[in-house]
């Protein structure tokens, strides 16, 4: 495959079978390897699409400053694109995110504003909204409410899955901004409505839920519950156990959030087996494990890994 530039090389990721993790010959799991995107994560799709749409709408002009609350991957994608396109990027990032993510952001030239660990990404969103008010000339693409985020998956990820696997019965993905699932969900509701759309969200340690009051809670503006069929909360222990199984049995080195998604997918697979049906279940692998090596999640006992992830934003 040949592309004019890195920015054109987003998407069209491989879909690979997981024969050893699949519970039966006719209940199959498949992984969509989104780590094969230009900066190594699924967020390249959303970030580039948000930039392209903002340019089309005239919101972004040469030399503009971009501002974005992000726990990492979206920031990294935006930083690469901003560098190539000549924009300045300011990322607001919770301080309890891995060092690799910060280094990558700095390498691509982004400036990082840290937000407090307590409250997790909610705090990053709040700090970013405050900065946006103070700097009205900055452009906040705002991944949590930008329809271009979901559109990237409605027009990209969803159709790619259906083309590669017409017999698809389930798609399981992580829930963060909700963009991936909103786009894929809407695509399948319109084109193959019997496909079950399953969300897996990371369950963090108490620190991350340390809001001052419940009114500070946050539901992304993009989220539409009608586009998914089930939603599971997966803790670090199950996520780490599954991400290690994925490497051990299938040779795939994935990020920790993919372990959470795989955990939910395997539960779906077992339900299908119990019901005596067949299935082709797609697992969206958001990124590789490289950025999370320093967390300690890939070595030692599960107990130790669980301890080390306590309080971290690991997805």
């Amino acid at each position, binding site marked *: 495959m040949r592309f004019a530039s890195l920015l054109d090389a987003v998407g069209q990721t491989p879909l690979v079978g997981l024969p050893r993790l699949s519970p039966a010959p006719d209940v199959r799991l498949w992984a969509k390897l989104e780590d094969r995107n230009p900066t190594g994560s699924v967020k390249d799709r959303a970030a580039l699409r948000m930039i392209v749409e903002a340019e089309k709408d005239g919101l972004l002009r040469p030399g503009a400053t971009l501002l974005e609350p992000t726990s990492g991957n979206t920031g990294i994608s935006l930083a690469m694109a901003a560098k190539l396109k000549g924009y300045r990027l300011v990322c607001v990032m919770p301080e309890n995110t891995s060092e690799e993510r910060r280094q990558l952001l700095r390498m691509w030239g982004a400036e990082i504003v840290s937000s407090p660990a307590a409250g997790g*990404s909610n705090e990053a969103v709040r700090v970013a909204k405050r900065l946006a008010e103070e700097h009205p000339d900055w452009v906040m693409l705002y991944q949590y409410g930008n329809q271009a985020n979901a559109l990237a998956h409605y027009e990209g990820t969803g159709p790619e899955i259906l083309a590669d696997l017409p017999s698809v019965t389930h798609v399981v993905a992580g829930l963060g901004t909700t963009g991936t699932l909103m786009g894929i969900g809407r695509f399948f509701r319109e084109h193959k409505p019997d496909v079950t759309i399953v969300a897996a969200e990371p369950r963090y340690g108490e620190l991350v839920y340390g809001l001052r*009051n419940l009114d500070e809670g946050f539901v992304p503006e993009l989220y539409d519950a009608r586009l998914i069929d089930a939603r599971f909360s997966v803790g670090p222990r199950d996520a780490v156990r599954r991400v290690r199984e994925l490497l051990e049995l299938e040779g795939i080195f994935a990020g920790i959030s993919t372990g959470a998604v795989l955990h939910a997918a395997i539960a779906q697979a077992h339900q299908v087996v119990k019901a005596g049906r067949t299935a082709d279940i797609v697992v969206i692998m958001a990124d590789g494990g490289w950025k999370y090596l320093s967390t300690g999640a890939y070595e030692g006992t599960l107990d130790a890994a669980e301890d080390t992830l306590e309080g971290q934003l690991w997805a």
Partner: protein
Amino acid sequence: MAIEVRIPTILRTHTGGAKTVEGAGKTLSELIDDIEARHVGLKERLVHNGDLRKFVNVYVNDEDVRFRGGLGAEVSDGDVVTVLPAVAGG
């Protein structure tokens, strides 16, 4: 056996600081009423106008109850119910 309910930090003022409480009921709604009898004020923080509050997520055995009938979701002895505030990802 009873149903274990995990309470987030922010709501532990209603449980005397306890991280988990126990209750009984056939549905989530009955379970919340049962717990409210011993932990006054909790229900008001979870439920508004007959529905779960927007920024409250409740999971039965890790599955979001909004996809299992909301307050009408069936629960049974041995289940683990987790209450969490809605937070951002990404």
